[in-house]
């Protein structure tokens, strides 16, 4: 199922020094990171939402790869299945369903202005976060053993310590269900 991280683990086992290992992980990281950023940029820049959605899917997949690099096996899977799979296909279906013509799209003549302005405004927030992160120890991200992030381990965590939020996610999911019916569904005349 999750062959890819296994490969990495194998790689790790195969070398004593681990330099190549790390170099390879870095190389993977940068690849995924660049893809993710490009995808995100595409999302922000593409005029048509469909293009944006496709580009976003690329980002999500790249992120899944990164999760794998971070030894989060379960999340890697969930990201692909739930996010890139379910959520994004829903979005794309709706985009297609609405049958958006180019003339329905907003004419964003001032888009670039806003983008640049936005970037300037966001800069302090980003720098602030960077500054924060820099105070952390910059450890290496080699794969953690002991089934860290495996289904069983995470599951035990979930049911032992996080029962209540987990249960309430049920209600959380019910609400948009009802909501979607109320807002977008068919409605009989008042009962």
């Amino acid at each position: 199922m999750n062959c890819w991280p296994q490969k990495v683990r194998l790689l790790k086992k195969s070398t004593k020094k681990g330099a190549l290992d790390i170099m390879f992980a870095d190389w993977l990281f940068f690849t995924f990171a660049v893809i993710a950023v490009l995808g995100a940029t595409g999302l922000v820049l593409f005029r048509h939402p469909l293009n944006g959605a496709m580009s976003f899917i690329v980002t999500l997949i790249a992120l899944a790869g990164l999760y794998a690099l971070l030894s989060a096996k379960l999340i890697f899977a969930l990201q692909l299945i739930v996010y890139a799979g379910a959520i994004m296909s829903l979005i794309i279906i709706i985009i297609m369903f609405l049958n958006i013509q180019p003339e329905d799209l907003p004419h964003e003549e001032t888009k670039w202005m806003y983008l640049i302005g936005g970037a300037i405004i966001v800069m302090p927030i980003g720098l602030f976060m960077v500054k924060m992160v820099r105070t952390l120890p910059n450890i290496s991200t080699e794969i953690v053993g002991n089934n860290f992030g495996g289904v069983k381990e995470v599951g035990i965590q979930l049911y032992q310590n996080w029962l209540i939020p987990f249960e309430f996610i049920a209600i959380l999911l019910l609400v948009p269900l009802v909501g979607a019916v109320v807002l977008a569904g068919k409605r009989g005349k008042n009962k």
Partner: protein
Amino acid sequence: MELSVNYLGLIPLFPLMGAVIIGLLHVFTCNRTRLPEKVYGILACIGPILSFILALRVWVALKALPPESRFLTHDVFTWISVGEFNVSMGFLADPLACLFLLFVTFIGTLIHIYSIGYMSGDVNYGKFFAYMNLFLGSMLVLVLGDGPLVMFVGWEGVGLCSYLLISFYSEDRANVVAGNKAFIVNRIGDLGFVLGMAFLFWGIGSGGFDYLSLSVNADNLAPGIALAVCLLFFIGATGKSAQIPLYVWLPDAMAGPTPVSALIHAATMVTAGVYMVARFSFLYAGVELAGSVIAWVGILTALLAAIFAMYQDDIKKILAYSTVSQLGYMFAGVGVAAYSAGIFHVFTHAFFKALLFLGAGSIIYALHHEQNIWKMGGLKAKMPITYVTMVIGALALAGCPPFSGFFSKDEILYCAFATGHYGIWLVGIVVAAMTAFYTFRMIFIVFHGQARDQEKFDHAHEPPSVMTIPLIILAVGAIFAGFFNLPGVFGGNLMVSQWLEPSLTEVHPYTSTFVEIFVVVASIAAFAVGLKLAWSKYGQGATKPEFSGFSRFAYNKFYVDEAFDRVLVQPYRALGATIWKNIEPNVTDAPVKGASRLYMMLGNAFKVFQAGYVRVYAIYMVVGLSLMTLFLSQSLN
């Protein structure tokens, strides 16, 4: 040794009760069936007569006491007691108060009787007597009150009555305005009085606020405060007694009925200032500067008023200015520390000036409210009693020996001379001549010569006996009152001065007989000169002269009233209007208005920020965030 008796309080109470009873009767009947005038007349006279009788009793009681302990007191109740400030509603009769008591009740009674005739037929007959009784009561409180604060009650009370009686004919705006003027000008003086009391209290502290305690503690006063108190009290006196600069109300006050002018604005109320200065002789005696100020203000007032009196047309105004002038003498007297002389002049002046006013009232009554002397003339044939009595009054006023005015005025001038105030004396002599001149100018024009207004002349007649009898009684007084205080040079022994001695802090000046005779001669000469001039100018009948130059200036009273109007009244009104029209909305209220306007403006401006675009709201959030992170970054290290 003071003696406590329990009837002093009754003396003012009788007239006050009379005022209440008459007033209530009047108020409740005036718009329905009126009570007969007789009822009011009798009711009105009961109070003054009873007071007069009690005054005599007081006099007798005082006489019985040894001179150095001639005090009667009556503490009715604790009036105000706040901390160290304790005042009782107390009355004090000493020789000075007794003298005032006697002549005030005596003349008051006479004028009440006179008014029964004079006011007959008036719609507000009852009201008049209520006011008169109220006045008399207040005056008696003023005189008897033990301590400045009780005196002030009477002081303001007589002011109120003066106001009410001046504006008695209230349908005519001018009368009411004159009344207002009197009250307001008096109030300016009263401010001085009140402040004087406050200073006195400040200076004396807990020492008590009746005359006896005050005179004991007066020595403890700091000189600065003593001076301030003296001058402030004197300001009060200038208001009530019509001295420069507050004399302006008195001539206008003649708008009231003539008995009022006689009683209030000649004989009694206006002398309250002199009485006050004499009362506080223990203070003034220690502050020479205040004395000089008083003396000079007094004598200059005398001069100024005499000048005005020489040019007046209105018989009552002439008398009014003469009153101001005589009051000036009195102040000159008390100013040079000749308190008894000043008081004595008050005493004699009360007789002859009341007499002159009542005489003038008779004339006015006879001529149907004509007051212009240039419409009169030759009345001596028609009104002999009035003529004779008025001439007696005029002689007394002009200072002709041996009428009462001569002695009292001479005493003042002598004291001024003897204490070295030669300037005052000199002015006094000049004023004496002028007094003789304007007095006889009036007599000659009114009684001598031809009738100038034939129709009025034909209707003129001697008034009823209820009016003439008081005239005669007063005339007798005007003749003989002076003998009570004959100075040594005439073989007298200054009886009044001696009587007053326990109440006053004064040293009778002693000079050589030569000086005494010189002063007397000078006075007589002044009288003669004045009389001669008057006779030569008006004795044979004269017409109203055209005024020009100085005389025109003097005829218009140096435009003092106009100046007051320009300098004080108009600016005051303008200030009021400015405050209301400009300052209030544009300055005082401006911050409030401005704040609310700014608030509204900002509120409307803020609507722009609620643009309605979701993106804009997101931008607000991010901008806010990023600003906050900027600050936060500073704290991250």
